[in-house]
Protein backbone atom coordinates (compact mmCIF):
# COMPACT_ATOMS: atom_id res chain seq x y z
CA UNK A 1 0.00 0.00 0.00
CA UNK A 2 1.33 3.40 -0.93
CA UNK A 3 1.15 5.64 2.15
CA UNK A 4 -1.21 8.56 1.63
CA UNK A 5 0.73 10.97 3.83
CA UNK A 6 3.84 11.05 1.63
CA UNK A 7 4.82 12.69 -1.65
CA UNK A 8 6.52 10.88 -4.52
CA UNK A 9 8.99 11.53 -7.32
CA UNK A 10 8.49 9.98 -10.75
CA UNK A 11 11.77 8.15 -10.23
CA UNK A 12 10.26 6.20 -7.28
CA UNK A 13 11.60 8.09 -4.30
CA UNK A 14 9.20 9.01 -1.49
CA UNK A 15 9.39 12.21 0.52
CA UNK A 16 8.07 13.05 3.95
CA UNK A 17 8.01 16.77 4.66
CA UNK A 18 8.74 17.68 8.28
CA UNK A 19 9.14 21.07 9.77
CA UNK A 20 12.56 21.94 11.05
CA UNK A 21 12.54 23.21 14.66
CA UNK A 22 15.23 25.64 13.53
CA UNK A 23 12.89 26.96 10.85
CA UNK A 24 12.16 25.87 7.31
CA UNK A 25 11.45 22.34 6.18
CA UNK A 26 13.19 18.99 6.11
CA UNK A 27 12.54 16.27 3.52
CA UNK A 28 12.98 12.68 4.60
CA UNK A 29 13.76 10.63 1.49
CA UNK A 30 13.51 6.91 0.75
CA UNK A 31 12.49 4.65 -2.12
CA UNK A 32 9.08 3.09 -2.61
CA UNK A 33 8.00 -0.51 -2.13
CA UNK A 34 7.15 -0.65 -5.83
CA UNK A 35 10.74 0.25 -6.74
CA UNK A 36 12.15 -2.23 -4.24
CA UNK A 37 10.16 -5.04 -5.80
CA UNK A 38 11.56 -4.22 -9.23
CA UNK A 39 15.12 -3.93 -7.97
CA UNK A 40 15.01 -7.39 -6.32
CA UNK A 41 17.80 -8.45 -3.98
CA UNK A 42 19.69 -5.35 -2.99
CA UNK A 43 23.38 -5.70 -2.26
CA UNK A 44 24.79 -2.21 -1.92
CA UNK A 45 23.83 1.40 -1.43
CA UNK A 46 26.07 4.43 -1.81
CA UNK A 47 24.84 7.40 0.21
CA UNK A 48 26.17 10.96 0.28
CA UNK A 49 27.93 12.55 3.23
CA UNK A 50 26.19 15.09 5.47
CA UNK A 51 26.62 18.58 4.09
CA UNK A 52 26.39 17.59 0.44
CA UNK A 53 24.23 19.89 -1.70
CA UNK A 54 21.60 18.03 -3.71
CA UNK A 55 19.34 19.17 -6.48
CA UNK A 56 15.85 18.05 -7.38
CA UNK A 57 16.03 15.40 -10.09
CA UNK A 58 19.78 14.88 -9.67
CA UNK A 59 21.50 11.79 -8.37
CA UNK A 60 22.51 11.72 -4.70
CA UNK A 61 23.61 8.09 -4.61
CA UNK A 62 23.28 4.66 -6.10
CA UNK A 63 21.58 1.44 -5.22
CA UNK A 64 22.67 -1.92 -6.57
CA UNK A 65 21.26 -5.39 -6.97
CA UNK A 66 23.44 -8.21 -8.26
CA UNK A 67 22.74 -7.45 -11.90
CA UNK A 68 21.71 -3.81 -11.97
CA UNK A 69 22.54 -0.42 -10.60
CA UNK A 70 20.18 2.52 -10.29
CA UNK A 71 20.66 6.16 -9.47
CA UNK A 72 18.96 7.55 -6.40
CA UNK A 73 17.55 10.94 -7.32
CA UNK A 74 16.84 13.69 -4.87
CA UNK A 75 13.20 14.78 -5.02
CA UNK A 76 14.06 18.21 -3.62
CA UNK A 77 16.81 20.80 -3.72
CA UNK A 78 18.76 21.43 -0.56
CA UNK A 79 21.50 20.17 1.72
CA UNK A 80 21.87 16.71 3.25
CA UNK A 81 21.53 17.03 7.03
CA UNK A 82 21.32 13.35 8.00
CA UNK A 83 22.11 9.98 6.48
CA UNK A 84 20.70 6.62 7.59
CA UNK A 85 23.98 5.00 8.58
CA UNK A 86 22.27 1.71 9.53
CA UNK A 87 20.98 1.15 6.03
CA UNK A 88 24.07 -0.15 4.15
CA UNK A 89 24.54 -2.96 6.67
CA UNK A 90 20.88 -3.97 6.72
CA UNK A 91 19.78 -3.81 3.11
CA UNK A 92 18.10 -7.19 3.35
CA UNK A 93 15.56 -5.79 5.82
CA UNK A 94 14.84 -2.65 3.79
CA UNK A 95 11.77 -4.14 2.02
CA UNK A 96 10.19 -4.84 5.45
CA UNK A 97 9.88 -1.16 6.32
CA UNK A 98 10.66 1.00 3.30
CA UNK A 99 8.70 4.01 4.57
CA UNK A 100 9.98 3.92 8.15
CA UNK A 101 13.36 2.51 9.16
CA UNK A 102 14.26 2.35 5.47
CA UNK A 103 14.74 6.11 4.99
CA UNK A 104 17.92 7.11 3.12
CA UNK A 105 18.66 10.78 3.75
CA UNK A 106 17.20 13.93 5.25
CA UNK A 107 17.48 17.10 3.23
CA UNK A 108 17.14 20.65 4.53
CA UNK A 109 15.02 22.10 1.73
CA UNK A 110 16.54 25.19 0.12
CA UNK A 111 13.93 25.71 -2.55
CA UNK A 112 10.39 24.87 -1.42
CA UNK A 113 9.04 25.27 -4.92
CA UNK A 114 10.57 21.88 -5.75
CA UNK A 115 8.00 20.25 -3.47
CA UNK A 116 5.22 21.33 -5.81
CA UNK A 117 6.61 19.12 -8.58
CA UNK A 118 6.06 15.93 -6.56
CA UNK A 119 3.18 13.49 -6.96
CA UNK A 120 0.62 12.51 -4.36
CA UNK A 121 -0.04 8.85 -3.58
CA UNK A 122 -2.87 8.51 -6.08
CA UNK A 123 -0.89 10.04 -8.93
CA UNK A 124 2.11 7.88 -8.09
CA UNK A 125 0.00 4.70 -7.99
CA UNK A 126 -1.38 5.61 -11.38
CA UNK A 127 2.09 6.00 -12.78
CA UNK A 128 3.16 2.63 -11.37
CA UNK A 129 0.20 0.79 -12.82
CA UNK A 130 0.98 2.35 -16.21
CA UNK A 131 4.63 1.29 -15.97
CA UNK A 132 3.68 -2.17 -14.95
CA UNK A 133 1.33 -2.56 -17.86
Amino acid at each position, binding site marked *: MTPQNLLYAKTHEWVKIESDPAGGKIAVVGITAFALELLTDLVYVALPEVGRKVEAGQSFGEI*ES*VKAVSDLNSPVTGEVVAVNADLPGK*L*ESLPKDPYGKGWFIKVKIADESTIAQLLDAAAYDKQCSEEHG
Partner: protein
Amino acid sequence: MRNTRSTQLLFELSRPGCVGVDLPVCDVPERPISELLPAGAINPAPLPLPELSEPDVVRHFVNLSTQNMSVDTHFYPLGSCTMKYNPKRNERLASLPGMVDLHPYQPESAVQGLLELLHESQYFLAEISGLPAVSLQPAAGAHGEMTALLVAAAYFRDRGEKRTTVLIPDGAHGTNPASAAMAGFDVQPIRCDEDGFVDLEEFATHLNERTAVFMITNPNTLGIFEKNIKKIVEMVHAVGALVYLDGANMNAILGITRPGDFGADLMHYNPHKTFSGPHGGGGPGAGPIAVAEKLAPYLPSPIVVKENGVYRLDYDRPKSIGRVRSFFGNVGVLVRMYCYIRTHGAKGLREVSEHAVLNANYLLAKVKHFLEVPHGDRCMHEFVASPVKLKNEKNISTMDIAKRLLDYGYHAPTVYFPLIVKEAMMIEPTETESKATLDAFAEALFRITGESADLLHDAPHTTPVSRADEVLAARKPVLKHGG
Protein backbone atom coordinates in the same frame (compact mmCIF):
# COMPACT_ATOMS: atom_id res chain seq x y z
CA MET B 1 36.75 -39.57 -8.72
CA ARG B 2 36.48 -36.26 -6.97
CA ASN B 3 39.26 -35.39 -4.57
CA THR B 4 37.87 -32.72 -2.28
CA ARG B 5 40.77 -32.71 0.15
CA SER B 6 43.23 -31.31 -2.36
CA THR B 7 40.81 -28.62 -3.47
CA GLN B 8 40.82 -26.93 -0.11
CA LEU B 9 42.34 -23.47 -0.31
CA LEU B 10 46.12 -23.24 -0.58
CA PHE B 11 46.29 -21.57 2.79
CA GLU B 12 44.38 -24.44 4.35
CA LEU B 13 46.78 -26.97 2.80
CA SER B 14 49.85 -25.01 3.88
CA ARG B 15 52.28 -26.71 6.29
CA PRO B 16 55.16 -24.70 7.80
CA GLY B 17 58.53 -25.69 6.39
CA CYS B 18 57.29 -27.01 3.03
CA VAL B 19 58.74 -25.55 -0.14
CA GLY B 20 57.94 -26.31 -3.78
CA VAL B 21 61.13 -25.13 -5.48
CA ASP B 22 64.84 -25.79 -5.23
CA LEU B 23 66.73 -22.68 -6.20
CA PRO B 24 70.46 -22.78 -6.96
CA VAL B 25 73.08 -21.90 -4.38
CA CYS B 26 74.53 -18.47 -4.88
CA ASP B 27 77.62 -18.77 -7.13
CA VAL B 28 78.91 -15.23 -6.61
CA PRO B 29 80.61 -13.95 -3.47
CA GLU B 30 77.83 -12.97 -1.09
CA ARG B 31 77.77 -9.76 0.90
CA PRO B 32 75.67 -8.98 3.95
CA ILE B 33 72.29 -7.68 2.85
CA SER B 34 72.68 -4.77 5.25
CA GLU B 35 75.55 -3.51 3.05
CA LEU B 36 73.41 -3.61 -0.08
CA LEU B 37 70.05 -2.30 1.05
CA PRO B 38 69.04 0.30 3.65
CA ALA B 39 67.55 -1.34 6.74
CA GLY B 40 64.37 0.73 6.42
CA ALA B 41 63.61 -0.70 2.98
CA ILE B 42 63.64 -4.32 4.08
CA ASN B 43 60.60 -6.29 5.19
CA PRO B 44 61.57 -7.76 8.58
CA ALA B 45 58.93 -10.50 8.34
CA PRO B 46 58.70 -13.42 5.94
CA LEU B 47 55.98 -13.10 3.29
CA PRO B 48 52.68 -14.54 4.54
CA LEU B 49 52.40 -16.97 1.62
CA PRO B 50 51.33 -20.62 1.90
CA GLU B 51 54.01 -23.29 2.23
CA LEU B 52 53.53 -26.32 -0.01
CA SER B 53 55.56 -29.05 -1.64
CA GLU B 54 55.58 -29.52 -5.41
CA PRO B 55 53.21 -32.54 -5.36
CA ASP B 56 50.80 -30.63 -3.10
CA VAL B 57 50.65 -27.81 -5.63
CA VAL B 58 50.19 -30.12 -8.62
CA ARG B 59 47.44 -32.15 -7.00
CA HIS B 60 45.66 -29.01 -5.86
CA PHE B 61 45.54 -27.31 -9.23
CA VAL B 62 44.93 -30.42 -11.31
CA ASN B 63 41.94 -31.24 -9.14
CA LEU B 64 40.69 -27.68 -9.48
CA SER B 65 40.92 -27.96 -13.24
CA THR B 66 38.54 -30.91 -13.25
CA GLN B 67 35.80 -28.63 -11.92
CA ASN B 68 35.70 -26.65 -15.17
CA MET B 69 33.92 -27.09 -18.44
CA SER B 70 36.10 -26.15 -21.42
CA VAL B 71 36.10 -26.31 -25.21
CA ASP B 72 38.37 -29.35 -25.19
CA THR B 73 35.95 -31.22 -22.93
CA HIS B 74 32.47 -29.84 -23.72
CA PHE B 75 30.32 -28.10 -26.32
CA TYR B 76 30.52 -24.44 -25.32
CA PRO B 77 27.98 -22.43 -27.36
CA LEU B 78 28.65 -19.18 -25.52
CA GLY B 79 27.22 -16.58 -27.88
CA SER B 80 29.45 -13.70 -28.86
CA CYS B 81 32.52 -15.45 -27.45
CA THR B 82 33.21 -17.76 -30.43
CA MET B 83 34.38 -20.73 -28.42
CA LYS B 84 35.87 -22.69 -31.28
CA TYR B 85 38.46 -25.45 -31.16
CA ASN B 86 42.01 -24.29 -30.41
CA PRO B 87 44.39 -26.04 -32.80
CA LYS B 88 47.10 -27.84 -30.85
CA ARG B 89 49.73 -27.30 -33.54
CA ASN B 90 49.46 -23.57 -32.91
CA GLU B 91 50.17 -24.12 -29.24
CA ARG B 92 53.28 -26.13 -29.94
CA LEU B 93 54.60 -23.65 -32.49
CA ALA B 94 53.90 -20.59 -30.36
CA SER B 95 55.87 -22.24 -27.56
CA LEU B 96 59.09 -22.74 -29.55
CA PRO B 97 61.93 -21.07 -27.64
CA GLY B 98 62.63 -19.01 -30.75
CA MET B 99 59.11 -17.58 -30.48
CA VAL B 100 58.43 -17.33 -26.78
CA ASP B 101 61.78 -16.69 -25.09
CA LEU B 102 62.28 -13.31 -26.71
CA HIS B 103 62.85 -10.13 -24.74
CA PRO B 104 60.94 -7.08 -26.00
CA TYR B 105 64.11 -5.00 -26.02
CA GLN B 106 66.39 -7.39 -27.82
CA PRO B 107 67.90 -5.83 -30.93
CA GLU B 108 65.73 -5.88 -34.06
CA SER B 109 68.45 -7.88 -35.79
CA ALA B 110 67.83 -10.65 -33.24
CA VAL B 111 64.06 -10.90 -33.92
CA GLN B 112 63.85 -10.78 -37.70
CA GLY B 113 61.78 -13.96 -37.88
CA LEU B 114 59.19 -12.65 -35.45
CA LEU B 115 59.08 -9.21 -37.05
CA GLU B 116 58.49 -10.91 -40.40
CA LEU B 117 55.57 -12.82 -38.86
CA LEU B 118 54.15 -9.62 -37.37
CA HIS B 119 54.63 -7.68 -40.60
CA GLU B 120 52.78 -10.39 -42.51
CA SER B 121 50.07 -10.37 -39.84
CA GLN B 122 49.56 -6.64 -40.36
CA TYR B 123 49.03 -7.35 -44.04
CA PHE B 124 46.66 -10.27 -43.43
CA LEU B 125 44.46 -8.21 -41.15
CA ALA B 126 44.41 -5.37 -43.66
CA GLU B 127 43.40 -7.72 -46.45
CA ILE B 128 40.71 -9.51 -44.44
CA SER B 129 39.18 -6.21 -43.27
CA GLY B 130 39.63 -4.17 -46.44
CA LEU B 131 41.21 -1.49 -44.28
CA PRO B 132 44.84 -0.84 -45.19
CA ALA B 133 46.52 0.26 -41.96
CA VAL B 134 46.91 -1.99 -38.93
CA SER B 135 48.17 -1.72 -35.36
CA LEU B 136 48.82 -4.94 -33.48
CA GLN B 137 49.34 -3.20 -30.13
CA PRO B 138 46.00 -3.37 -28.23
CA ALA B 139 45.77 -6.12 -25.63
CA ALA B 140 42.11 -7.10 -26.02
CA GLY B 141 39.00 -6.27 -28.01
CA ALA B 142 37.84 -3.57 -25.61
CA HIS B 143 41.35 -2.14 -25.60
CA GLY B 144 41.23 -2.06 -29.41
CA GLU B 145 37.92 -0.19 -29.29
CA MET B 146 39.36 2.46 -27.04
CA THR B 147 42.55 2.71 -29.11
CA ALA B 148 40.59 3.20 -32.33
CA LEU B 149 38.44 5.87 -30.68
CA LEU B 150 41.60 7.67 -29.52
CA VAL B 151 42.77 7.48 -33.14
CA ALA B 152 39.47 9.04 -34.25
CA ALA B 153 39.82 11.76 -31.61
CA ALA B 154 43.35 12.57 -32.78
CA TYR B 155 42.16 12.70 -36.38
CA PHE B 156 39.43 15.22 -35.61
CA ARG B 157 41.72 17.25 -33.37
CA ASP B 158 44.23 17.43 -36.19
CA ARG B 159 41.51 18.69 -38.53
CA GLY B 160 40.41 21.28 -35.99
CA GLU B 161 36.97 19.69 -35.63
CA LYS B 162 35.23 19.57 -32.27
CA ARG B 163 33.24 16.37 -32.22
CA THR B 164 32.14 15.10 -28.87
CA THR B 165 29.59 12.33 -29.31
CA VAL B 166 29.76 8.64 -30.10
CA LEU B 167 26.52 6.95 -31.20
CA ILE B 168 26.01 3.33 -30.15
CA PRO B 169 23.04 0.98 -30.79
CA ASP B 170 21.43 -0.22 -27.57
CA GLY B 171 22.11 -3.83 -28.48
CA ALA B 172 25.88 -3.28 -28.41
CA HIS B 173 28.37 -4.88 -26.06
CA GLY B 174 28.88 -2.86 -22.87
CA THR B 175 32.49 -2.35 -23.82
CA ASN B 176 31.44 0.03 -26.62
CA PRO B 177 29.99 2.77 -24.40
CA ALA B 178 32.64 2.15 -21.73
CA SER B 179 35.45 2.52 -24.30
CA ALA B 180 33.88 5.66 -25.74
CA ALA B 181 33.67 7.20 -22.27
CA MET B 182 37.31 6.32 -21.57
CA ALA B 183 38.36 7.94 -24.83
CA GLY B 184 36.70 11.14 -23.62
CA PHE B 185 33.46 11.06 -25.64
CA ASP B 186 29.82 11.45 -24.65
CA VAL B 187 27.70 8.42 -25.44
CA GLN B 188 24.34 8.56 -27.20
CA PRO B 189 22.52 5.24 -27.32
CA ILE B 190 20.55 4.50 -30.51
CA ARG B 191 17.43 2.37 -30.34
CA CYS B 192 17.15 -0.78 -32.43
CA ASP B 193 13.79 -1.73 -33.91
CA GLU B 194 12.19 -5.01 -32.92
CA ASP B 195 14.00 -6.87 -35.67
CA GLY B 196 17.33 -5.74 -34.29
CA PHE B 197 18.12 -3.19 -37.00
CA VAL B 198 19.18 0.37 -36.29
CA ASP B 199 16.11 2.60 -36.19
CA LEU B 200 17.02 4.93 -39.05
CA GLU B 201 14.56 7.63 -38.10
CA GLU B 202 15.87 7.92 -34.58
CA PHE B 203 19.40 7.55 -35.84
CA ALA B 204 18.97 10.56 -38.12
CA THR B 205 17.81 12.73 -35.24
CA HIS B 206 21.02 12.11 -33.30
CA LEU B 207 23.41 12.47 -36.19
CA ASN B 208 24.97 15.91 -36.54
CA GLU B 209 28.20 17.85 -36.79
CA ARG B 210 28.99 16.97 -33.15
CA THR B 211 29.00 13.27 -33.98
CA ALA B 212 32.49 11.82 -34.02
CA VAL B 213 31.92 8.11 -34.48
CA PHE B 214 29.09 5.66 -34.96
CA MET B 215 30.00 2.27 -33.48
CA ILE B 216 28.25 -0.70 -34.99
CA THR B 217 28.56 -4.42 -34.52
CA ASN B 218 27.88 -6.15 -37.83
CA PRO B 219 26.65 -8.85 -37.91
CA ASN B 220 24.96 -7.42 -34.84
CA THR B 221 24.54 -9.01 -31.43
CA LEU B 222 21.35 -10.72 -32.62
CA GLY B 223 23.41 -12.51 -35.26
CA ILE B 224 21.85 -10.51 -38.08
CA PHE B 225 23.62 -8.62 -40.83
CA GLU B 226 22.50 -4.99 -40.70
CA LYS B 227 20.44 -4.65 -43.89
CA ASN B 228 20.76 -0.87 -43.96
CA ILE B 229 24.50 -0.77 -43.44
CA LYS B 230 25.17 1.00 -46.73
CA LYS B 231 22.59 3.70 -46.02
CA ILE B 232 23.85 4.07 -42.44
CA VAL B 233 27.43 4.52 -43.59
CA GLU B 234 26.36 7.14 -46.11
CA MET B 235 24.45 9.05 -43.45
CA VAL B 236 27.43 8.97 -41.06
CA HIS B 237 29.90 10.06 -43.70
CA ALA B 238 27.58 12.81 -44.87
CA VAL B 239 28.00 14.61 -41.54
CA GLY B 240 31.75 14.04 -41.59
CA ALA B 241 31.77 11.40 -38.86
CA LEU B 242 33.49 8.00 -38.88
CA VAL B 243 32.08 4.47 -38.76
CA TYR B 244 33.56 2.04 -36.25
CA LEU B 245 33.00 -1.67 -36.77
CA ASP B 246 33.08 -3.84 -33.68
CA GLY B 247 34.74 -6.94 -35.08
CA ALA B 248 33.41 -9.30 -32.41
CA ASN B 249 31.43 -11.17 -35.05
CA MET B 250 34.01 -11.41 -37.82
CA ASN B 251 33.70 -15.17 -37.68
CA ALA B 252 30.57 -14.83 -39.80
CA ILE B 253 31.98 -12.87 -42.74
CA LEU B 254 35.60 -13.94 -43.42
CA GLY B 255 36.12 -13.69 -47.15
CA ILE B 256 32.40 -12.99 -47.65
CA THR B 257 32.38 -9.25 -47.12
CA ARG B 258 34.87 -6.80 -45.64
CA PRO B 259 34.24 -3.94 -43.21
CA GLY B 260 36.28 -1.62 -45.42
CA ASP B 261 34.09 -2.54 -48.38
CA PHE B 262 30.87 -1.79 -46.56
CA GLY B 263 32.17 1.54 -45.43
CA ALA B 264 33.76 1.14 -41.99
CA ASP B 265 36.65 3.48 -41.25
CA LEU B 266 37.97 1.71 -38.16
CA MET B 267 37.58 -1.70 -36.59
CA HIS B 268 39.07 -4.09 -34.07
CA TYR B 269 39.60 -7.81 -34.29
CA ASN B 270 39.29 -10.36 -31.50
CA PRO B 271 41.93 -12.78 -32.81
CA HIS B 272 41.43 -15.16 -29.88
CA LYS B 273 37.85 -15.58 -31.12
CA THR B 274 37.94 -15.24 -34.88
CA PHE B 275 41.33 -16.86 -35.40
CA SER B 276 41.26 -19.10 -32.34
CA GLY B 277 43.35 -18.86 -29.23
CA PRO B 278 43.01 -20.34 -25.80
CA HIS B 279 40.54 -18.24 -23.81
CA GLY B 280 42.41 -19.22 -20.64
CA GLY B 281 39.52 -18.78 -18.21
CA GLY B 282 39.21 -15.15 -19.28
CA GLY B 283 42.18 -14.02 -21.30
CA PRO B 284 44.66 -13.32 -22.67
CA GLY B 285 43.23 -11.93 -25.87
CA ALA B 286 44.49 -9.34 -28.29
CA GLY B 287 42.75 -6.47 -30.04
CA PRO B 288 44.51 -5.41 -33.23
CA ILE B 289 42.83 -2.57 -35.10
CA ALA B 290 42.57 -1.80 -38.81
CA VAL B 291 41.79 1.67 -40.13
CA ALA B 292 41.32 3.60 -43.36
CA GLU B 293 44.34 5.20 -45.02
CA LYS B 294 43.49 8.71 -43.77
CA LEU B 295 43.64 7.47 -40.16
CA ALA B 296 46.92 5.58 -40.54
CA PRO B 297 49.16 8.40 -39.26
CA TYR B 298 47.39 8.35 -35.89
CA LEU B 299 47.80 4.64 -35.11
CA PRO B 300 49.82 3.76 -32.00
CA SER B 301 53.58 3.34 -32.32
CA PRO B 302 55.50 1.29 -33.18
CA ILE B 303 54.37 -0.56 -36.28
CA VAL B 304 56.49 -3.09 -38.17
CA VAL B 305 57.95 -1.94 -41.50
CA LYS B 306 60.14 -3.67 -44.08
CA GLU B 307 62.98 -1.86 -45.79
CA ASN B 308 65.48 -3.48 -48.14
CA GLY B 309 64.52 -6.92 -46.93
CA VAL B 310 65.02 -5.99 -43.27
CA TYR B 311 62.23 -5.64 -40.73
CA ARG B 312 62.23 -2.93 -38.12
CA LEU B 313 59.97 -1.14 -35.66
CA ASP B 314 58.91 2.31 -36.81
CA TYR B 315 58.58 4.86 -34.01
CA ASP B 316 59.03 7.93 -36.19
CA ARG B 317 55.33 8.70 -36.57
CA PRO B 318 54.75 12.26 -35.38
CA LYS B 319 50.95 12.17 -35.53
CA SER B 320 50.65 8.87 -33.64
CA ILE B 321 48.47 8.82 -30.53
CA GLY B 322 51.47 7.23 -28.75
CA ARG B 323 51.18 4.01 -26.81
CA VAL B 324 48.24 2.24 -25.23
CA ARG B 325 50.32 -0.32 -23.31
CA SER B 326 53.90 -1.32 -22.60
CA PHE B 327 55.97 -3.23 -25.18
CA PHE B 328 54.84 -4.36 -28.62
CA GLY B 329 51.56 -6.17 -28.05
CA ASN B 330 50.16 -9.56 -27.11
CA VAL B 331 52.62 -11.30 -29.40
CA GLY B 332 51.88 -14.81 -28.11
CA VAL B 333 48.25 -14.43 -29.18
CA LEU B 334 49.29 -12.97 -32.54
CA VAL B 335 51.60 -15.90 -33.30
CA ARG B 336 48.65 -18.28 -32.87
CA MET B 337 46.56 -16.02 -35.09
CA TYR B 338 49.23 -16.10 -37.77
CA CYS B 339 49.39 -19.90 -37.61
CA TYR B 340 45.61 -20.09 -37.93
CA ILE B 341 45.46 -17.81 -40.96
CA ARG B 342 48.34 -19.67 -42.65
CA THR B 343 46.64 -23.01 -41.98
CA HIS B 344 43.40 -21.91 -43.61
CA GLY B 345 44.44 -19.68 -46.47
CA ALA B 346 41.79 -17.70 -48.35
CA LYS B 347 39.51 -20.62 -49.14
CA GLY B 348 39.78 -22.05 -45.66
CA LEU B 349 38.88 -18.78 -43.97
CA ARG B 350 35.81 -18.48 -46.15
CA GLU B 351 34.91 -22.03 -45.17
CA VAL B 352 35.25 -21.07 -41.51
CA SER B 353 32.45 -18.55 -41.96
CA GLU B 354 30.39 -20.87 -44.14
CA HIS B 355 30.53 -23.67 -41.60
CA ALA B 356 29.93 -21.32 -38.69
CA VAL B 357 26.85 -19.88 -40.40
CA LEU B 358 25.65 -23.32 -41.50
CA ASN B 359 25.93 -24.67 -37.95
CA ALA B 360 24.13 -21.68 -36.46
CA ASN B 361 21.30 -21.85 -39.00
CA TYR B 362 20.96 -25.58 -38.52
CA LEU B 363 20.66 -25.22 -34.77
CA LEU B 364 18.22 -22.34 -35.25
CA ALA B 365 16.11 -24.51 -37.57
CA LYS B 366 15.91 -27.19 -34.88
CA VAL B 367 15.43 -24.95 -31.88
CA LYS B 368 12.78 -22.63 -33.32
CA HIS B 369 10.18 -25.41 -33.07
CA PHE B 370 10.19 -25.30 -29.29
CA LEU B 371 11.79 -21.99 -28.27
CA GLU B 372 10.89 -18.56 -29.61
CA VAL B 373 13.53 -17.05 -31.85
CA PRO B 374 12.00 -13.67 -32.52
CA HIS B 375 14.37 -12.29 -35.13
CA GLY B 376 13.62 -14.45 -38.11
CA ASP B 377 14.31 -17.90 -39.51
CA ARG B 378 17.82 -17.12 -40.65
CA CYS B 379 20.90 -15.87 -38.89
CA MET B 380 24.60 -15.46 -39.44
CA HIS B 381 26.98 -17.22 -37.00
CA GLU B 382 24.72 -17.02 -33.92
CA PHE B 383 21.13 -16.41 -32.95
CA VAL B 384 19.21 -15.22 -29.92
CA ALA B 385 16.32 -17.25 -28.51
CA SER B 386 13.81 -15.58 -26.22
CA PRO B 387 11.86 -18.22 -24.28
CA VAL B 388 9.31 -15.79 -22.87
CA LYS B 389 6.41 -18.25 -23.12
CA LEU B 390 8.09 -20.71 -20.78
CA LYS B 391 8.70 -17.88 -18.37
CA ASN B 392 5.09 -16.72 -18.45
CA GLU B 393 3.42 -20.11 -18.51
CA LYS B 394 5.68 -22.33 -16.44
CA ASN B 395 7.86 -19.80 -14.63
CA ILE B 396 10.95 -21.33 -16.23
CA SER B 397 13.56 -18.68 -16.92
CA THR B 398 16.47 -18.59 -19.29
CA MET B 399 18.71 -18.93 -16.26
CA ASP B 400 16.95 -22.18 -15.30
CA ILE B 401 17.49 -23.59 -18.78
CA ALA B 402 21.11 -22.48 -18.77
CA LYS B 403 21.77 -24.18 -15.45
CA ARG B 404 20.01 -27.37 -16.48
CA LEU B 405 22.09 -27.59 -19.66
CA LEU B 406 25.14 -28.03 -17.44
CA ASP B 407 23.57 -31.26 -16.14
CA TYR B 408 23.29 -32.52 -19.70
CA GLY B 409 27.00 -31.89 -20.24
CA TYR B 410 26.80 -28.65 -22.21
CA HIS B 411 28.12 -25.27 -21.30
CA ALA B 412 25.30 -22.72 -21.27
CA PRO B 413 24.81 -20.17 -24.03
CA THR B 414 25.31 -16.50 -23.22
CA VAL B 415 22.27 -15.44 -21.21
CA TYR B 416 20.49 -12.11 -20.69
CA PHE B 417 22.51 -10.49 -23.46
CA PRO B 418 21.79 -8.54 -25.58
CA LEU B 419 19.86 -6.45 -23.08
CA ILE B 420 17.20 -5.57 -25.65
CA VAL B 421 15.83 -9.14 -25.83
CA LYS B 422 13.71 -10.54 -23.00
CA GLU B 423 15.09 -13.75 -21.45
CA ALA B 424 17.84 -13.64 -24.08
CA MET B 425 19.71 -16.85 -24.79
CA MET B 426 22.46 -16.26 -27.32
CA ILE B 427 23.71 -19.40 -29.03
CA GLU B 428 26.89 -19.59 -31.14
CA PRO B 429 27.91 -23.11 -32.10
CA THR B 430 31.02 -22.17 -34.19
CA GLU B 431 32.29 -24.11 -37.19
CA THR B 432 34.22 -26.72 -35.24
CA GLU B 433 31.17 -28.59 -33.93
CA SER B 434 29.61 -31.57 -35.70
CA LYS B 435 26.02 -32.09 -36.74
CA ALA B 436 25.87 -34.92 -34.24
CA THR B 437 26.80 -32.57 -31.40
CA LEU B 438 24.27 -30.00 -32.53
CA ASP B 439 21.55 -32.68 -32.77
CA ALA B 440 22.28 -33.89 -29.27
CA PHE B 441 22.35 -30.34 -27.92
CA ALA B 442 19.03 -29.47 -29.56
CA GLU B 443 17.52 -32.59 -28.11
CA ALA B 444 18.75 -31.75 -24.63
CA LEU B 445 17.27 -28.27 -24.93
CA PHE B 446 13.99 -29.76 -26.08
CA ARG B 447 13.87 -32.20 -23.20
CA ILE B 448 14.57 -29.44 -20.73
CA THR B 449 11.58 -27.46 -21.96
CA GLY B 450 9.42 -30.40 -20.93
CA GLU B 451 10.89 -30.84 -17.46
CA SER B 452 9.20 -29.66 -14.30
CA ALA B 453 9.74 -26.16 -13.07
CA ASP B 454 10.79 -27.46 -9.65
CA LEU B 455 13.53 -29.58 -11.15
CA LEU B 456 14.81 -26.68 -13.23
CA HIS B 457 14.67 -24.11 -10.46
CA ASP B 458 17.09 -26.20 -8.48
CA ALA B 459 19.41 -27.06 -11.39
CA PRO B 460 22.20 -27.83 -11.86
CA HIS B 461 22.11 -31.12 -9.97
CA THR B 462 25.31 -32.82 -11.12
CA THR B 463 27.97 -30.12 -10.97
CA PRO B 464 30.48 -29.93 -8.10
CA VAL B 465 28.32 -27.24 -6.49
CA SER B 466 24.71 -26.17 -6.94
CA ARG B 467 23.64 -22.63 -7.68
CA ALA B 468 25.96 -20.08 -6.14
CA ASP B 469 24.38 -17.36 -4.02
CA GLU B 470 25.37 -14.20 -5.87
CA VAL B 471 23.45 -11.96 -3.50
CA LEU B 472 25.42 -13.19 -0.51
CA ALA B 473 28.68 -12.77 -2.45
CA ALA B 474 27.90 -9.17 -3.33
CA ARG B 475 26.36 -8.12 -0.01
CA LYS B 476 29.25 -9.24 2.13
CA PRO B 477 32.18 -9.48 -0.26
CA VAL B 478 34.81 -12.06 0.72
CA LEU B 479 37.51 -11.55 -1.89
CA LYS B 480 40.38 -13.42 -0.27
CA HIS B 481 41.02 -16.20 2.20
CA GLY B 482 40.35 -15.02 5.73
CA GLY B 483 38.15 -12.13 4.66
